[in-house]
């Protein structure tokens, strides 16, 4: 929005253009700050790597988990043929990890996307309409927030049954209040602003005001929360998988792979334990670094270091 105004002003008057610095957009500034942040760079590289893994591995190396087993290669330690070793059914751990990326990232990104859309709409409408609707919706959010996140996700999955799709649904329900609160706070802080009154005055309808004039202002806090939220969602996906409530065998998922490794702890098969966990940690770290970087880039006043 500020871009549009600056560029229009400078286009209108050549003198003003000569006197002021070249127009800069808020997003471009933020992008530059993000790109100059070492840790955020690292986060981005990790995130892009795992997204590529999730998108292209299933296409480039099709794999049928149902027929994958090699009974002569059970629990082989890492070797040239199996860089991350094999599991109790002789399945290549590296391959299952690569294919498991789809489950973790798919649920993480999918659940947060649903939560962002539903939460933002609820928050915007709730804050804008106010009165009893606001009271009711926010009371509902308070109730959802009365449960530690994972507990609620577990309860929802216990209710609707285990599985990857149900974990996605459970995690998105649990995450909705975060985005609803951010969106609502934006509406409340902007409701009395003059440009909103002006939009009313020229006859804009509620929906247009909300989504064209209010919503863009909540974008940056929502983006930061969503990036960090994906990290949390990936951890929750893995936790559900570990408890046997997420992805069901034989399909690979990092948390479920860890659950399988428990049986072989005492036999010294460290590779089935180490690698899937390392992948979860790296992915989550990537999103956390990117989220921290985004926060610093979008709001330089909050710079943590």
């Amino acid at each position: 929005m500020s871009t549009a105004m600056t560029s229009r002003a400078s286009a209108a008057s050549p003198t003003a253009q000569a006197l002021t610095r070249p127009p800069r957009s808020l997003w471009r500034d933020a992008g530059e700050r993000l790109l100059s942040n070492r840790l955020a760079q690292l986060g981005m590289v990790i995130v892009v790597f795992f997204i590529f893994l999730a998108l292209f591995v299933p296409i480039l190396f099709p794999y049928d988990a149902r027929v994958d087993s090699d009974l002569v290669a059970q629990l082989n330690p890492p070797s040239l043929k199996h860089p991350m070793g094999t599991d109790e059914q002789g399945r290549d751990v590296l391959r299952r990890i690569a294919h498991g990326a789809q489950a973790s990232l798919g649920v993480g990104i999918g659940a947060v996307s649903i939560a962002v859309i539903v939460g933002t709409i609820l928050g915007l409408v709730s804050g804008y309409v106010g009165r009893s609707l606001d009271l009711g919706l926010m009371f509902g959010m308070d109730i959802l927030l009365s449960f530690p996140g994972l507990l609620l996700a577990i309860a929802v999955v216990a209710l609707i049954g285990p599985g990857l799709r149900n974990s996605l649904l459970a995690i998105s329900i649990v995450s909705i209040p975060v985005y609803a609160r951010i969106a609502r706070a934006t509406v409340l802080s902007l409701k009395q602003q003059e440009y909103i009154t002006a939009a009313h005055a020229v006859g804009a309808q509620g929906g247009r005001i909300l989504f064209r004039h209010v919503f863009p202002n909540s974008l940056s806090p929502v983006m930061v929360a969503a990036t960090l939220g994906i990290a949390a969602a990936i951890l929750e996906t893995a936790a559900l998988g570990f408890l046997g409530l997420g992805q069901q065998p034989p399909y690979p998922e990092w948390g479920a792979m860890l659950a399988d490794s428990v049986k072989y702890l005492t036999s010294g098969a460290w590779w089935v334990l180490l690698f899937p966990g390392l992948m979860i940690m790296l992915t989550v770290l990537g999103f956390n670094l990117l989220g921290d970087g985004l926060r610093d880039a979008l709001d330089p006043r909050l710079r943590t270091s």
Partner: protein
Amino acid sequence: MGHYLLKRSLTLILVLLGVSLLVFGFVRLIPGDPAVVMLGERATPENIERIRAQLGLDKPVYEQYLIFISNALRGDLGTSVLRQEPVTREIIRRFPATIELAFGAMIIATLLGIPLGILSAVKRNSWFDASSMVVALTGVSMPVFWLGLMLIFLFAVTLRWLPSGARLDANTQFQPITNSVLLDSLLQGNPALFFQGVRHLILPALALGTIPMAIIARMTRSSMLEVLNQDYVRTARAKGLHERGVILRHALRNALLPVITVVGLQVGILLSGAILTETVFSWPGIGRWLVDAIYARDYPIVQGVTLTIAIIFVVINLFVDVLYTLVDPRVRLD
């Protein structure tokens, strides 16, 4: 203050009523007949009838809720389907183990996290700062169950330094009083039992405490950095105070204020994490009991434990809010 407390308490009661409604609705939302789902293969007509009567499923829904809430208010959370045990009694029996674990984790988290954060801030941009922040960043990104399994693999299986799980060695006789091993062993004057309990607690508490530790360290560091730039810290230095005095007496006290809130906010992480940690370490608390009950579809237990955890969670959150307004007079009550 009184007004504020009253308002917050009233909201809390409303929220808890909502929570109870949700937890109640939980079993009623199960697709199909809950009695049949719960009994699975044991679903004979007599058994189904018995469970329906036990859960009150034969009455109208509003009546079921009134019975549920009035029973819950009197501390009766129903009876487990599988073993026919009163849920409340079992929660009380298992809860001390969870509290012990959470306390152990919190002690590790604060005793390591706060000094780590202070040192990082004081030695800002040093290798110590960089490496402790790397530890903190990886700490918050680690799945707690994976960390637990790695600790078991390293310290219990490979090095054999510590036990891999459970609260006591398999053959240890223990007469519970409060069901907290550490407390009871002290009450009974049995140091050997106490140290055995501590040995069993170290790995689970370390696993559960790592994420809070990382969060507390990061928060302490940034809060400390902010305070170290304040005028009164410069004044203290200008007066010629010893650097240690400046940091510990002048800076730390103010820097710890936001840390208190962060410590309080870890309760949710501890309760969620306890479910996983207890599962990994065969720790006989309510978290593992909940997971077992979900596998067994024993919904009265799931209901009871979920409600209990939610109540603890919101009450502690309120307590932390109030505590914060007490220690920081700048926070206005509203």
